[in-house]
Structure formats: structure tokens, C-alpha cells
């Protein structure tokens, strides 16, 4: 595992690169997009496990913190969705460069899935496959679940409210999967198959503290990407 900084001097992003364990065949690469806020904190362990599994399965993997989050530069009040989209673009460029590939797989969890869908739509030629893991279907509904008094600014709340997964799915790459660990009625509005995998929700505090990992979901992602 190699901790590193990617991006520009003004927008240094902390990342962890894991090289592919085997070099058989053409190299493949995967960028993992974290959730936001406290979901990022609690999902960190699962995302690390997923990265290690994919590396063992032959993927060069990169997971990174968006600007203003985690170990990346910037302060929390500078983090926003527009910026996070550009950070995923920077991560794709960095990983292509490190791994020597022309395309990457994008995997996003929660808000990270919505960001990944937007970036994949704009960069279809660089995204060989897209995995949307428990994406936010409705930003309006998601905002209602945020803790009162959380650090999110009004501008960012507006951005999150505008998240609308059904419309984001219109231009995503052909090879895309929506995987969910909890079934919601709103999944029926998506207009594409949604794969339900019974597994722990990795972004939930109680699940994380209990030590449970969403192993079936990670196995399914690995299998689907093969």
C-alpha cells in the first residue's frame, strides 16, 4: 500500500495506491470514490477492504480523499460536489498514469456513487465499467437524514438537494451496475436493473462498530468486474 498525494499544488489530494497483485494479461485499474461526511468515516474500513480485494484480483486501485475532506488539503467548508467531481477526474488521470492503462473502473459508494456517475457520463472513453453502490436516489431525502447541526454549508446542502439519480443515469457507460444492500421503493424509479445483495450497510456507525463487513457486496463487485 502506497500513501501519496495527487492533484495540483492548490488541490493536493491524499490517496492510497495498491498495485495489482498479479500482472497476468492486460493491466486493469479501479478508482474508488468514498461517501461524504460521517458516512466517509464509517465506510473507510469497507472501502479499504474492497481496494485490497480488487488489488488481489489483479486491479491497480486508488482510493483518495476529496479536497476539503480526510487527509487532503483544503478545509471542510471548501469541500463541494463540483470540486469532488473534478477530484475524481484528477484521480483517474493519476491512476492511468501509475498503472499504465487507458481506462479505469469507477466504483462509488453513497454520494461517491453519484459523483462517479456524473464523471463516468462525461468521460465515457476512459471508464470501462461503473459500479454504483447504494447511491443516493434523491438528494432531498438524503439531506433529511443528515444530523442536525452538521458542518454542511447552505451552498453544499443546495448541491446535495439537487442530486437526482434517475436523471444522472441517462448517460452512464453501457457496462454499469447499481448494487444495493438495502431495498428502497425509490429504486423502482431508476429505469435500470438494481441488484440487491443482502449485506451490512458499511456507512452506518453501528454496523461499523460491530465489526461487520459487507463481504457479499464486495464479492459481487469483484465477480461482476471479472
Amino acid at each position, binding site marked *: *500500500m502506497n*500513501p*501519496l*498525494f495527487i492533484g495540483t*499544488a492548490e488541490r*493536493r489530494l*491524499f490517496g*492510497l495506491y495498491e498495485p495489482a497483485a498479479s500482472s497476468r494479461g492486460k493491466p486493469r485499474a479501479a478508482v474508488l470514490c468514498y461517501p461524504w461526511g*460521517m458516512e466517509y*468515516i464509517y465506510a*473507510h*474500513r469497507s472501502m*479499504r477492504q474492497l481496494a485490497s480485494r480488487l488489488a488481489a484480483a489483479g486491479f491497480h486501485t486508488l482510493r483518495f480523499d476529496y479536497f476539503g*475532506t*480526510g*487527509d487532503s*488539503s483544503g*478545509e*471542510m467548508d471548501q469541500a463541494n460536489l463540483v470540486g469532488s467531481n473534478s477530484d475524481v477526474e484528477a484521480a483517474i488521470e493519476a491512476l492511468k498514469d501509475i498503472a499504465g492503462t487507458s481506462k479505469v473502473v469507477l466504483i462509488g459508494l453513497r454520494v461517491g456513487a453519484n459523483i462517479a456517475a456524473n464523471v463516468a457520463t462525461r468521460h465515457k472513453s476512459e471508464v470501462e465499467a461503473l459500479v454504483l453502490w447504494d447511491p443516493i436516489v434523491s438528494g432531498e431525502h438524503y439531506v433529511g437524514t443528515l*444530523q442536525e*447541526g*452538521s*458542518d454542511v454549508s447552505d451552498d453544499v446542502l443546495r448541491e446535495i438537494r439537487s442530486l437526482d439519480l434517475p436523471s444522472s443515469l441517462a448517460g452512464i457507460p453501457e457496462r454499469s451496475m447499481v448494487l444495493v444492500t438495502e431495498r428502497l421503493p425509490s429504486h423502482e424509479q431508476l429505469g435500470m436493473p438494481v441488484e440487491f445483495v443482502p449485506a451490512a450497510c458499511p456507512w452506518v456507525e453501528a454496523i*461499523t*462498530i460491530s465489526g461487520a463487513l459487507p463481504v457479499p457486496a464486495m464479492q459481487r463487485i469483484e465477480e461482476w468486474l471479472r
Partner: protein
Amino acid sequence: MAAVEFAYKEQAVLLGRHSLVGIVTRPPPAQQKDAPAVVILNTGIVHRVGHHRMYVSLARELAKSGHTVLRFDFAGIGDSKPRNDSTSPLLASLSDIREVLDTLEKAHEVKKFILVGLCSGADHAALYTHADSRVVGLVLMDPTLPPTLRYYIHYVMQRLKNIRNWISVATGRSGLLRLASAHVINRVRPKTQIEGLNLQNLRFSSYLPQCYRSAAVRGVRMLAVFTSVSVRHTYKQQMLDAFPEASAGGTLRLEFFPESDHLFSGVRERSRLLTVICDWLDSR
């Protein structure tokens, strides 16, 4: 071209034999103080960023005022690989701290350290200090405190107000009964050594007061911060009653955040916490 000025510099590092993942935050060379390096420990299973990115903000603020700061993950936490030996989790964490301080001492030529921790991080810091004279300061947020007589009185008074607690006592399911029996068992068979200890039985161990005593005798400065919500802390002076020697040398400062939850979720409380820690560090 003029050199770019920076308020602090962050570097990703791998530390020690177990390649523990950490971030060193350093001040600009001109502002570097001849002060102990600050090492921030994990809270439970949360990685080095901390809840609400608290440790990133703290590291940057301290670096701006001249301190070198390290945030790192214990083996098996965050991005650090798990150990492949049979060392107990507590001893493994204490061994990780030693490895990290050794590495920092070599790489940054610092000889003295201040450990910072919240909850389990505070307990790791207090326990470690006992065995390493390089640690000269502790910032302990909601550390484990042994129950004192006054603690039990407060505990009982609070619970008597609720009829459900009466029912629990009558049916033998009371938390107080469990607490008291654990207290008695640990009095009869006290754990005076670190072997066999874990963070769950720490509050009854006589090893913990020993650690605070030896730190105080050595003149280790301590800042202890308490929030409102804790089943282990029911009144302000509990730390002084539990560890009377810790305050004897005048090296202990207590700070209270009655409006804050355990994780300093409120922006205002978190901001005040940063100010309190920075001021304490600079008040040597």
C-alpha cells in the same frame, strides 16, 4: 520567482516495522519551535482523520503555531495493515506508539513528545506514558476514570429518578449491580500489571492509577478535557478524586465542555477545543 509561503506542510509516511500509515504536519522551517512533537492517537476504530475531521484541523492549527504533529493509524486500524502475531490489542497499540516515537526521533530529531487522544486514545496515551520518559505531556479527552464513592452516589441518585431502574434492581438486571460486582471482584483480585488488561477492565485496575502517579511524579503536564455525556464521569472533580497524585504537582489542568457530546460534533465546541489545546501547548 519568489518562494511560495506555506502555513504548514503535510507528508504521508510509513512508520516502523509494521509500516503504519501516518501524516506528518510540519510548520515552515522559520516557525519551527524547539518544542515536543505532538502525536495524535486513534479514537476506537476511526482512522487518523478523526470524527468530524477533528485531528486534521488540530494538526494544522498546531503546525501553524510551530509544532510538528503526527497522526497515524494503529496496526489494523484505518490504512495500517493488521499485525500477524498474537500480541493482545492493548499491548500491540502501546508497541505501535513506541515504534512511531522511535521513528520520529530518528527522522525529525525530536527527543520529547506530547500524546493526544480521545476516549480509547486517551487511555492508550496514559498507559504508554508510564513506560517512556520521552513523553512530557498528555492531552486526554474523556479518559477512563475509576469509579469513586462520590461517583457511585451520583450514579445511584441519577438512576433512582427513573422507575425502570428500580425494576432493574428488583430483577437483578441493574447496571449498578454489575458495576459494583466488577468493582468488588477487581478489589479482591487487583490487576496491577499491564498483562491481562484491556480497555474494558481498565477502570477497575490499580495499574491505571499507577500510570497517572508515575506520570505526575515525572512532571508530565496533563490537560484533561471532559464532555457532558459519559457514564463513567458524573462530576467535575472525579479525576482529582480518582488520581489525587496526578494533580499534586500542579501539572494537571481540567477543562469542561458541558454542552458537547463525546465526539465534539458541534462546530462551536470543536473550535473551542482546538483553542484550549493550542493555548495549553503554548503556555509552557
